[in-house]
């Protein structure tokens, strides 16, 4: 089954009675018609016609430049919106100008009151969203594709099943088989105009004559349409295994209404997860707007869960107000994007108190992350590096359990990253400082300890391309009793001999000690 987008994006400023065309430069640089409206088609214009010819025929033709990339984006957004009817929606990529969507509605039609009702609903909703579309249903993507574009039943619904697909396809032109232009020309030359003309032909001969060409061969397309050959579709978003869905007659335009309905959705999603012993680690709420757009909000959890009250709270923290409701949502979908078995989490912890503690910590991190964002709830992870600023890495706390670092009283409690330059005076060039100025305040050193030499990590070049240098760290105490962690970068003698192109060793403040 597929729904087809109109050739041009709807623009209320334009009267549909006026001929209108979108112009695109083709590969040879000539401006040709990329898409056109029914009025333009009615006066005899067609796709691919040079703009100059078209204007000669119809001087009052309204021309606008086409934007294929924006079209593709809009089509993908529409595909997400169409997930209201099917978890597996794919964009038809093959044919330019005949773009459409494939919806896999296997086993889903009864939810919408049958196939005919589903097609009617799709057409009505798309029309309501400002997109004129044709829709048809078939047993294969190929059959649906052909019927949606060339199907006769304009008033009634074009629905084919395994039995009558062959008959319904038979009167359609051969181009309904998604073949390229070369194959089409060749087929016409042989007098093969309708799909039915192909049925009595010997397959071996057909395959031999139409095997070449860039696209998929004629015989394979025929087989795909009739269901003799399979065809894989790539959905715009991977279909989730667990999803809860709700649609209502009147659009919901306020956050309170969304929240109330979200409570039902979380309960609906939780039930199958409990049944299967699964827990969700990531959830996405998708709201379907009546204007053909979607709006969504995601939350992540550190460990799998299925408590609908917790989910609801996370969505509240993440900010339901961030959903763009527009003129209102007429359906909402809650999907579990990441699912994990719950059992794995239960045996891992020892005592019940510990398990409870770990659980409440994970819940806290989830909640903070939902509100503040993943990159603002952090925990330190020790890293393998000599350089103090690289010895730990701050990572999102989500899904990690914070661990205590191995401590050292000679390390600062607050680290300045990056280090700040200081002006220091030492009695000896490679000795401890006796006086230094940091943040415009001069301090006299009363006691000092060092140096602690940290060799440069020569295998990690500095971003500015300069050579990394040795650091000599000192713990110093000033006259007020404050303690600092200073280092001198560079060595006199070995890394600096006084030559003009070399940098003299410099002093830096790297942190404060208690």
């Amino acid at each position: 089954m597929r729904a087809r987008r109109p050739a041009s994006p709807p623009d209320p400023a334009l009267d549909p009675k006026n001929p209108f065309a979108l112009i695109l430069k083709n590969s040879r640089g000539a401006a040709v018609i990329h898409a056109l409206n029914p009025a333009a088609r009615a006066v005899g214009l067609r796709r691919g016609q040079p703009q100059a010819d078209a204007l000669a025929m119809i001087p009052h033709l309204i021309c606008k430049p086409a934007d294929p990339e924006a079209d593709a984006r809009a089509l993908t957004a529409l595909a997400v919106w169409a997930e209201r009817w099917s978890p597996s929606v794919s964009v038809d990529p093959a044919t330019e100008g005949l773009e459409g969507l494939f919806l896999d509605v296997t086993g889903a039609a009864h939810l919408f009151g049958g196939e005919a009702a589903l097609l009617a609903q799709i057409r009505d909703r798309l029309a309501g969203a400002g997109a004129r579309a044709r829709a048809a249903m078939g047993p294969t993507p190929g059959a649906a594709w052909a019927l949606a574009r060339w199907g006769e039943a304009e008033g009634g619904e074009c629905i084919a099943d395994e039995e009558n697909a062959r008959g319904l396809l038979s009167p359609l032109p051969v181009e309904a088989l998604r073949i390229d232009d070369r194959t089409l020309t060749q087929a016409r030359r042989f007098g093969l105009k309708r799909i039915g003309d192909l049925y009595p032909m010997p397959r071996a001969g057909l395959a031999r004559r139409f095997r070449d060409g860039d696209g998929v061969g004629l015989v394979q397309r025929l087989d795909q349409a009739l269901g003799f050959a399979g065809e894989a579709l790539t959905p715009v978003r991977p279909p989730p295994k667990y999803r809860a869905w709700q649609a209502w007659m009147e659009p919901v335009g306020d956050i309170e209404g969304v929240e109330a309905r979200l409570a039902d959705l979380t309960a609906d999603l939780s039930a199958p997860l409990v049944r299967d012993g699964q827990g969700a680690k990531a959830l996405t709420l998708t709201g379907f707007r009546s204007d053909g757009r979607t709006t969504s909000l995601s939350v992540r959890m550190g460990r799998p869960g299925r408590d609908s009250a917790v989910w609801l709270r996370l969505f509240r923290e993440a900010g339901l107000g961030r959903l763009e409701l527009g003129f209102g949502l007429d359906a909402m979908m809650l999907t579990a994007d990441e699912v994990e078995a719950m059992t794995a989490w239960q045996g891992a912890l020892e005592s019940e108190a510990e398990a409870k503690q770990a659980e409440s910590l994970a819940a806290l991190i989830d909640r903070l992350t939902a509100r503040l964002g993943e990159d603002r709830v952090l925990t330190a992870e020790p890293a393998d590096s000599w350089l103090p600023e690289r010895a730990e890495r701050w990572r999102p706390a989500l899904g990690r359990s914070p661990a205590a670092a191995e401590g050292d009283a000679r390390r600062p409690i607050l680290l300045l990253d990056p280090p700040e330059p200081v002006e220091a005076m030492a009695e000896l060039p490679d000795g401890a400082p006796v006086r230094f100025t940091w943040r415009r305040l001069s301090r006299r050193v009363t006691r000092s300890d060092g140096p602690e030499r940290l060799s440069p990590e020569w295998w990690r070049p500095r971003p500015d391309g300069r050579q990394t240098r040795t650091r000599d760290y000192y713990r110093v105490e000033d006259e007020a009793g404050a303690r600092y962690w200073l280092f001198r970068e560079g060595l006199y003698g070995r890394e600096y001999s006084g030559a003009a192109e070399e940098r003299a060793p410099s002093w830096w403040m790297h942190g404060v000690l208690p």
Partner: protein
Amino acid sequence: MTPAPLSSPGLFPERPAPLEEACAAGPRDAAALMAFALSRRLEGDGRPVLMTATRAWLGEHGRPYGPGLPGTSLILAPVNTAAEALWTLEQALRSGAVSLALGAVDAATLTQTRRLDFAAKQGGCVGLVLPRGLDGLSAARRRWRISTLASAIDPDDARAPGAARLTAELVRGRGERAGAWMLEQDDETHRLRLADRLADSGLAAIGHAGAPSGLAA
């Protein structure tokens, strides 16, 4: 600005109250404040510590550094506004998942600190607000002013800084006498404890003379 000699204090209130407040006496005392703040939790409490501070605070004072915080597993929440920091503090305190929640929040109102106090009692955690000063009203049970002190004498090397020392001045305590205590960091456990009274002489000597080597023996 050295605080008055540690005058006739009562017992040091080692057991933290649900909500306390501590500020640094001056710009040099940030590290001492941090060490004091981290000591305001029960010994042997294995729950992690949560710290929230605005990016501006972290830029000014530096970020907490794991290797310098032995035995502390830390969750850091850098936030943009004081409101976010207060919200984070309240969530952490109420959850009961952390042993201590630190928040570098300036100008929390009386109502806000009351909320935090209530959340801390509910969750069984300790909350510590680190404002710039102690001027405003607050529901915190204790309000501390922390200043750094010259370190203890290192028995191995008299010229090197020894065990860290600081003064914790209880400016106001509910039902407690104000006082000041000298605390010292234990080399082994890295926890703060009351400094040895005998050390007072050493402290005075360091304060006046630049070469304390003679007194170290």
